């Protein structure tokens, strides 16, 4: 522990020395400037589609005050002519509008419709009685399906109350429901009048007993998620530049040799370098949570795994890159992977159950004031811890001068990392745990492939997804064994078969464990079903074993050079099996 602290102190000193004297002033000035400008811009209001549509208006139809419109006042004759020339997209003359049938003009009409609808609503609200202007109010009631066969009678009693209210009130007085909903209309109208085009962020669309007015109802947009993600995750991203650079500097200055010759372990070095950044992230988390008035302990429980996860991804970047440009691109790749894994699913919070795999979703729920169970917590955070342990394990194993300073192709660097990670005295155990630890990585790649496959039309998207998922799984299971074969650690076919079985077993157990947790949280998602395969127990294990041994035996027989071919063969068999299970192949 003491050595870790010593190294942490050294890291902080290193960082301090970077920003001393004049450079500290420059950097501080730049940071302050960025804050000031961000504030100024946010005060400006945010309109992206400025002057997007060219709208011609007749002199009498009133000014169209919407940032999206480039308004040109024209008389009807000119308006029609310019509409035909396509120099305006739509013409508004009095109560009438004219537009063309092409895309642009159609969209302009849609945009004008949004604007005019709003203008009309405000006019009506100003000119008429609220009872007449907003004559329809709807109370939302969420009903839970009962456990047994019989209904709870909740709907019936709702109806009875409603009917009673209607019949019992004398026609002269206003029904109680109308009185309460009148105040709601006033509130919503105030918001409606005041707002810019951005809908307010509401985590839930309509809560129980909420009264909605159809024309004043604004849909939920996942802004809250994005804002939470930005507040918490972006400050952690910034740290990455310093964290990864720290290793680069040691490499360039050859200080690593000196460090490694002292009696500190690689674990202590890595932990020591990471610690200041973990502390920084924890402080950031606490500060932001206090600012947003959240629950600090809960926020820490959610964001510490996220911090560890992000830092462990950056540790991999730091261990793998060879040049400066590598560092930039790997970091960018890391940012995209993290974004996709954390932010993308949480965007669907409250819309799709896929969101439960992102821990950010827990934060969203926390701020919504909802509770979540332990199963949900573990489903979201276990992969984070697993990725962290995997990268720490590999990091500690590969932390030697030869590996870190060597310049060779990426795949060979990865292979070497796997080789170094495997404990040659406990081959079986190593292969087993490697298989389990690699599952979150497989899952992340598969999730990313969902995002990419989304570009394709539907049947192709599913097919591509299936193929990628299968290849990734086969590589994950067999990579360790292939490396061992390449290094000549295992030779006999019997060993290959045994290890194949162990790798398959490890992967199988880990997968099913994750599936088990997921099942208790996620109820319906076609994609997760496609990825996890189907539920049966013994048969999939045998299947996994068969695919892995195909790959490994082929690699043993034809050499590591043909490893891609072996992977392809195993994957084809695997894909056929999956198609059979899903029922595409009879």
């Amino acid at each position: 522990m003491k050595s870790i602290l010593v190294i942490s102190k050294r890291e902080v000193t290193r960082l301090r020395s970077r920003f001393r004297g004049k450079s500290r002033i420059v950097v501080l000035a730049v940071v302050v400037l960025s804050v000031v400008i961000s504030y100024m811009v946010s005060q400006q209001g945010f309109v992206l589609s400025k002057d997007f549509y060219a709208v011609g208006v007749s002199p009498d139809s009133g000014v169209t005050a919407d940032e999206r419109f480039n308004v040109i006042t024209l008389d009807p004759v000119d308006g029609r002519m310019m509409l035909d020339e396509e120099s305006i997209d739509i013409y508004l003359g009095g109560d009438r509008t004219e537009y063309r049938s092409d895309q642009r003009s159609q969209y302009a009409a849609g945009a004008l419709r949004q604007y005019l609808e709003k203008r009309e609503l405000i006019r009506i609200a100003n000119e008429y009685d609220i009872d007449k202007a907003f004559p329809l109010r709807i109370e939302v009631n969420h009903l839970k399906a009962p456990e047994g066969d019989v209904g709870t009678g909740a709907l019936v009693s709702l109806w009875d109350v409603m009917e009673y209210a209607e019949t019992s009130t004398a026609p002269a007085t206003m029904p109680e429901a109308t009185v309460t909903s009148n105040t709601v209309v006033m509130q919503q109208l105030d918001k409606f009048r005041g707002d810019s085009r951005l809908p307010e962020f509401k985590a839930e669309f309509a809560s129980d007993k909420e009264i909605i007015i159809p024309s004043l109802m604004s849909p939920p947009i996942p802004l809250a998620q994005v804002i939470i993600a930005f507040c918490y995750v972006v400050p952690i991203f910034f740290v990455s530049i310093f964290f990864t650079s720290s290793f680069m500097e040691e490499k360039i200055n050859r200080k690593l040799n000196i460090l490694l010759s002292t009696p500190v372990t690689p674990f202590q070095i890595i932990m020591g370098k990471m610690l200041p950044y973990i502390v920084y992230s924890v402080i950031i988390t606490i500060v932001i949570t206090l600012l947003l008035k959240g629950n600090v302990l809960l926020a820490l429980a959610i964001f510490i795994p996220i911090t560890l996860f992000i830092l462990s991804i950056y540790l991999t970047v730091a261990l793998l890159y060879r040049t400066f440009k590598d560092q930039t691109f790997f970091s960018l790749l890391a940012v995209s992977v993290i974004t996709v894994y954390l932010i993308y699913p949480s965007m669907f919070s409250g819309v799709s159950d896929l969101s439960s795999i992102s821990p950010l979703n827990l934060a969203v729920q926390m701020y919504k004031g909802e509770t979540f169970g332990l199963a949900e917590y573990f489903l979201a955070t276990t992969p984070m811890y697993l990725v962290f342990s995997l990268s720490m394990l590999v990091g500690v194993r590969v932390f030697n001068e030869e590996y870190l300073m060597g310049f060779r192709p990426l795949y060979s660097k990865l292979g070497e990392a796997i080789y170094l990670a495997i404990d040659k005295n406990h081959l079986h155990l190593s292969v087993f745990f490697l298989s389990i630890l690699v599952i979150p990585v497989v899952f992340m790649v598969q999730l990313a492939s969902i995002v990419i496959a989304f570009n394709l039309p539907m049947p192709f998207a599913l097919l591509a997804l299936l193929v990628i998922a299968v290849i990734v799984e086969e590589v994950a299971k067999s990579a360790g064994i292939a490396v061992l074969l390449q290094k000549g650690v295992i030779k006999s076919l019997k060993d290959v078969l045994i290890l194949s079985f162990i790798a398959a077993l490890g992967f199988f157990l880990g997968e099913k464990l994750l599936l088990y947790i997921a099942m208790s949280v996620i109820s319906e998602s076609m994609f997760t079903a496609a990825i996890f395969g189907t539920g049966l127990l013994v048969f999939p294990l045998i299947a996994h074993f068969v695919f892995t041994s195909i790959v490994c035996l082929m690699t043993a027989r034809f050499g590591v050079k043909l490893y891609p071919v072996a992977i392809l063969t195993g994957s084809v068999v695997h894909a056929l099996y999956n198609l059979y299970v899903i029922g595409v192949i009879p």
Partner: protein
Amino acid sequence: MSRFFIMIKRELKSLTKEKTIVLAIIIQLFLASFSSVIVVGLMSFCDPASIGQNTRIAVDVGIVGDTHSRLTGFLGERNLRVTVFADAATAEKAFYYGHVDTVLLVPKSNTGVVNMKLILPELDSKATVILMVLQEPLKMYETYLREMNGIEVNYTNLQGKPPTTYEFLYSLIVPILMLFPALLAGSIVIDTVSEEIENKTLDTLRSAPVSFNEILAAKIFAAVVVVFVQCFTWTMLLRLNSVYIQNLGLVLLFCVMIGTFISFGAAIIALCFKDRERSQFVYSIALIITTGLSYLLNPSPFNLIARLATGDHYTGIHHLTVYLIPLMLLGVIFFIWSEKLISAKSIN
């Protein structure tokens, strides 16, 4: 001049050799897909009209109470399946057995304010979709009730297409895709410059018969070539997804201009700080500042790309010339000061 091209070739080679460019493209493909997922999946939620039209979600609506109101007709027009229930008990049963997704309790009296009750399932995601699909017919009914009250609502027949996705695509996704290569170019310039400084290869290079400005110009030029290639590839990819970029030449020219501007700035930062770590940090913050400031311009770079790409009649080459001034200014400053900056000590 041929020396200059040799230098450019050297830079481009180092980019392709390390397969880093492949990574760059994967990253951007990621970014694009990520954004398109958001467009399709989420923006449709912001647009009740488009969720009704673009997606074929079958919602079964049960109605109790006044079943002869115009509402039933409006629901039918929107292709919702309507089931009429004689009493609340049967409706409740049907709801629990899953025969209907939602139930509307419609009061029988039709005078004054209509206070309905809507029964939604507990599950958040499903409830959201149902509510979105119901909004349009409910609005139609609201308009109808207003007319009954003697209020005339104008422009109800104006249809058009829901513009949210279109606006989002052209004003956010396309500019992000087009400007991302420029940001990357700045990073690349910082890397190549600070790498030469930190590894002390710059001194060797300077002993060769090329001027220092030629070396820097070659680095910047190579980065800008990469910007152009990437942007062009993007437009082709977008075309495959039937997103068409109008004024293609101008859009590409503008991206190259922005790429050059950012590269000059990045090179100045790298020459000042002389190490990658601080340069990249200052560069990323400087980018935030520039992006913020550029938003105050009219048209801002985002907006200009959006308007060019949609083929706005009033946007053209004259808007680009405005951007040419700061670009040339920065370029001149850069080439005059480069020698001074490199010989000066790094900022400490």
